[in-house]
C-alpha cells in the first residue's frame, strides 16, 4: 500500500470494502487491505474493534456482507474452501481438543487436510516442538505457553501459505513470546504471509507493517515509523521528582490529548504544538522536573488514534 503499486500476483491478501454487519452494527466497515507475500503484518486495535471478525472473513469463517477480494489469488466469496486448504488460522481461544492427546490432535488435523506421510509429519512436528516425549499426554494438561506453541504447530502442519493468528500470545510469558516471534520470522522467511493481531506494542514493532483498526474502521497503516511520522502528534517527556504525579493535573487541560505515566516518567502528548507547550509551562519552572521533546511512541499514537475515532457502537 506504500510505494509502488503491487502486482496482484505478489499479494497474499487483496481485499477492499469489506463490511460485516451484526444486528445492524457495522462491526467491520469498508475495510481494505493489501499484504504482499512473505510479509508479517501486525493487526492492532482496541478490544471489539473488529479484528477477529476481519480475520474470520479472510479465512472463510464469516461471509462478508459487502466488499470483495482475494486471498492467495482465490476469490473470498466463491473459493472459500480452497482458501481454507492453504490457510492456517489460529483462534484466540485454544481450540484443539483438550481430551485428546497431543498426537491425536495433530493426526486429526493432518487427516482433515488429507496430508500424505501423516505419521511421519506428525512425528517430525512433535520432535521440532519438543513434545515428542509427551505425545500421549492429554492436551488439556499442557500449560498456556505449550498450548500456544502446539496450536501454532497444528495450524502450520499442512504447510499453509497464509497464516492468520488471532492474539496468539495473549497470556504467554515474555520468553515464550519471543520464541514465538522468532518462529514467525522464520516462517515469513520461507515465504509464508502472516497477519497477526496483537495488543503488545513490542510485537507490533516486530512486524513489517502495521494495520490499525478501531470501531470497524481502518485508521492507519504502514511501518511503525511511518505511522508515528504521519500522525500529527507532539510529545514531551518529563522526568524528575514525582513527575508522574502531574498526569492527573495535566489531563483534560487544553492542548493535552494524553498524559501517561511510565514509572517515574511522564509522557504528555497533544496535536497542537503551541497549546501543548502552554499547558505544560506552569510545571516547567519551580519544579524539580526536567522536560524534553521526544517523538511519540507507537502506543501514544494508537491511544491518540482510538480517542480521536468515534465509537459508532456506543
Amino acid at each position, binding site marked *: 500500500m506504500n510505494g509502488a503499486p503491487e502486482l496482484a500476483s505478489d499479494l497474499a491478501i487483496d481485499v477492499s470494502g469489506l463490511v460485516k454487519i451484526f444486528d445492524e452494527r457495522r462491526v467491520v466497515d469498508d475495510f481494505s487491505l493489501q499484504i504482499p507475500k512473505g510479509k508479517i503484518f501486525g493487526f492492532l486495535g482496541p478490544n471489539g474493534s473488529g479484528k477477529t471478525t476481519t480475520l474470520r472473513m479472510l479465512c472463510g*469463517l*464469516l*461471509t462478508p456482507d459487502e466488499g470483495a477480494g482475494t486471498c492467495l489469488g482465490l476469490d473470498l466469496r466463491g473459493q472459500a474452501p480452497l482458501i481454507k486448504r492453504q490457510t492456517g488460522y489460529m483462534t484466540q481461544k485454544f*481450540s484443539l481438543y483438550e481430551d485428546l492427546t497431543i498426537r491425536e490432535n495433530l493426526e486429526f488435523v493432518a487427516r*482433515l*487436510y488429507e496430508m500424505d506421510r501423516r505419521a511421519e509429519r506428525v512425528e517430525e512436528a512433535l520432535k521440532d516442538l519438543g513434545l515428542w516425549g509427551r505425545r500421549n499426554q492429554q492436551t488439556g494438561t499442557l500449560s498456556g505457553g505449550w498450548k500456544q506453541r502446539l496450536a501454532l504447530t497444528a495450524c502450520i502442519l499442512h504447510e499453509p501459505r497464509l497464516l492468520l493468528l488471532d492474539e496468539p500470545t495473549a497470556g504467554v510469558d515474555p520468553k515464550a513470546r519471543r520464541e514465538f516471534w522468532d518462529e514467525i520470522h522464520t516462517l515469513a522467511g520461507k515465504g509464508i504471509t502472516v497477519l497477526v493481531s496483537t495488543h503488545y506494542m513490542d510485537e507490533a514493532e516486530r512486524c513489517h507493517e502495521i494495520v490499525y483498526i478501531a470501531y470497524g474502521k481502518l485508521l492507519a497503516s504502514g511501518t511503525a515509523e511511518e505511522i508515528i511520522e504521519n500522525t500529527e502528534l507532539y510529545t514531551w517527556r518529563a522526568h524528575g521528582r514525582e513527575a508522574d504525579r502531574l498526569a492527573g493535573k495535566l489531563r483534560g487541560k487544553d492542548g493535552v490529548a494524553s498524559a501517561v505515566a511510565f514509572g517515574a516518567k511522564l509522557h504528555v502528548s497533544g496535536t497542537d504544538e503551541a497549546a501543548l507547550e502552554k499547558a505544560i509551562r506552569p510545571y516547567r519552572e519551580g519544579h524539580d522536573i526536567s522536560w524534553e521533546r521526544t517523538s511519540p511512541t507507537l502506543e501514544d499514537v494508537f491511544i491518540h488514534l482510538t480517542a480521536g475515532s468515534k465509537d459508532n457502537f456506543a
Partner: protein
Amino acid sequence: MRRLLSLTRLGAMLMKEFNHMRRDRTTLGMMIGVPLIQLILFGYAINTDPKALPTAIYSSESTAYTRSFTAALVNTGYFEIVSQADGDDVDRMLTRGQVQFAVTIPPNFSRDLVLGKRPEILVEADATDPVATGSAISALQQIKATALERDLKGVSGSPREPAPAFDIIVHRRYNPENITQYNIVPGLMGVVLTMTLVMITGLAVTRERERGTMENLLSMPVRPAEVMLGKITPYVIVGYVQAAIILIAAAFLFDVPVEGSIALLSLATIFFMIANLAVGFTFSTIAQNQLQAVQMTFFFFLPSLLLSGFMFPFRGMPQWAQVLGEALPLTHFLRIARGILLKGSGFADIAADILGIIAFLIVAVAIAMSRYRQTLD
C-alpha cells in the same frame, strides 16, 4: 459483628439468581413449558380406557340375530366395525395392527341359536398391549347376557334360560397371559434409543461450540456431510449395543417371545436411530450450550414417551394426539418392535411403519443439514 445471615448478601444472591433465570430463556421456557405439556398430554390425550377400537367382523350369514349382536357390540362403545373381511384378511389385519379385534360368527349361527345349541362366537384380540384390550374384553361378557335377549324372547318356546344362548370365546393373541412385560420391554428399546441418541448427538455438537473447538474445525477443509456422518456413526454403534442389551434381557430375563426376524428388526432400527440422531443434530445447531441441548431433548422425549403408545394405549388418545403421535418415529418403531418380537411380523407387515420413520428421517436430516453452517454467520 458476624451474623449468620446478612439480608443484604442474601438479597444480592437472590437478585443474581433471578437475573440468571431471566436471561436463560430455554430454562424459563422449560419451567413453564414442561408443566403445560404434561397438563395437556395427561389431561387431554391420555386415556387408559380406550373406546371405539377398530374391529373386523366376519359373518357367513346376515340375520336379525347377527345384526343384533353386531349392534350390541358397537353399543358397548368399545368396538367400531371397520371391516367385514374374510378369514385370511382378518389374520393379516391383526398382525399389522390395523384392527384390535377380529370377530368371527360361525356358519349356521342363527340356526344353532334357535335350536338352543349355544353357538360360539370367536373374538380374537391383539393383546400385545393388555391395557388397550382389557376393558373391551370385559364388556364382551355383558353382551353375552343381553345382546339377543329381546330377539330370542319366546322363540324357543321355553322360559328364558338362565344361561346365555351363545358363547363368546376370547383368544388373546400374541400375549395370552396378559403379561405387561411383553408389551413394555420391546417398547423400551425404542424409548432408550430415543432418549440417549437424541441427547448424545445434541451434546456432541454443542460441546464443540461451547469449548470453542467448532471455530477451529470450521476453519479447516471439512464438509458438513463429513461432520454429520462422523458425529453420528459412533452413536449408531452405541445404539446397537443398547438395543442388543435390551433384546438379550427381553429374551432371557423377561421371557419375551422372539417370533420374528432379528435381522429385520436390526434393519428397522437403523432408520429409527438415524432419525433420532438427526433430531439431536438439529437441536445441537439451535442450542447455545450443552444444557439447552439436554432441555430440548426433554421437550422431544416427553411427547414421544406419552404419545407413541409406549405408556398408554395409542387408540385411547383423541384424534389430534394420534396425528401427532403418527408423526413421531417412536410410535412407528414401537409397532415394529412389538410386531416383530410378539407377532412375528414380516417385512410386508412393517413396511408402512418403516416408511413412517423414513418420512420423519428425511425431514429431520434436511433440517439438520440446512441448519448446519460451514461458517460462523
